[in-house]
């Protein structure tokens, strides 16, 4: 009597024919659910918070300031003169340009002041115009000095342009609280 157990020779392989299908299915799922959208927007740095009783008013040279005022109807005043919203860029460009070679404490300050009832979209359009003006001047300056667009400069030169030559200084004035 044979004590040997007879083993049937079964195949011990995992069927891999459908592995590709499975992988494709997973792949499709991730392909569909992936969102590679980059957040875009207008960047800004807010000033530090100062309690109302410690606020000191610093006098700034009139020549340095470009005051933009937007009322609740979306009318724009630049230094007291009414201008169309889409002229902000062209008006500011020469003023930014004229201050490229001045020291840092003489650069242009753009102050934006709105009413509490001003539409947010108009405010963004105004900011957009200001930023466009700066970007344009940066591009022109980079092209004159380095022969390249600002974005194609190497980081060192970019910093020089960004920090020393054409820094973006935007001051957000608080809307008048009286008009609450």
């Amino acid at each position, binding site marked *: 009597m044979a004590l040997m157990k007879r083993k049937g020779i079964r195949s011990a392989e995992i069927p891999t024919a459908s592995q590709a299908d499975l992988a494709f299915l997973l792949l499709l799922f991730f392909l569909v659910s992936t969102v590679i959208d980059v*957040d875009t927007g207008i960047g*800004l740095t807010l000033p530090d918070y100062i309690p109302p009783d410690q606020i000191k008013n610093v006098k700034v040279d009139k020549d340095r300031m470009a005051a933009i005022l937007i009322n609740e109807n979306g009318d724009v005043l630049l230094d007291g003169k009414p201008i169309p919203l889409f002229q902000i860029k062209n008006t500011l460009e020469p003023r930014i340009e004229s201050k490229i070679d001045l020291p840092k404490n003489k650069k242009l300050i753009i102050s934006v002041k709105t*009413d*509490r009832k001003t539409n947010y*979209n108009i405010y963004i359009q105004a900011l957009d115009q200001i930023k466009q003006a700066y970007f344009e001047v940066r591009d022109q300056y980079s092209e004159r000095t380095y022969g390249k667009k600002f974005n194609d400069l190497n980081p060192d030169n970019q910093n020089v342009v960004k920090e020393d030559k054409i820094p973006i200084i935007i001051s957000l004035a608080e809307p008048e609280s009286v008009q609450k």
Partner: protein
Amino acid sequence: MTFEKKRASVKQDIPTTSMPDIVFMLLMFFMVVTTLREYTILVQFKLPEAKALEKIENKRLIQYIWVGKSGKIQINDSIVKLSQVEPLMYAKRQALPNVIVSLRIDKDADMGEVTDIQQELRKASALRINYSANLKGS
């Protein structure tokens, strides 16, 4: 003379044994790249459009604040009051010192509301902000 089609004597099938590997590699890429939507957005908003846009490079630094058409403020997954913005943002800033606050505000909102939120952010010293906007004309 018999007409017989001439066939190349070379094998004609594409080797498919490595196909799963390739697919898995692609799969891995997409798995790593995918960020599943983290928040359910509770407010209705339509972003404004602008041209001079900047990209936020580091997604992990972003904290969103939504402001809807009706003026409701949403942070993380819930609607909050204006007075809650400061403590929430302060906590966030302690966890993540150089947080960028992305303001996703409806384009018909009033500046008063925006300024109020900005004041709260200043108090919480979360000073890096970004007005979220879409590219004009896209």
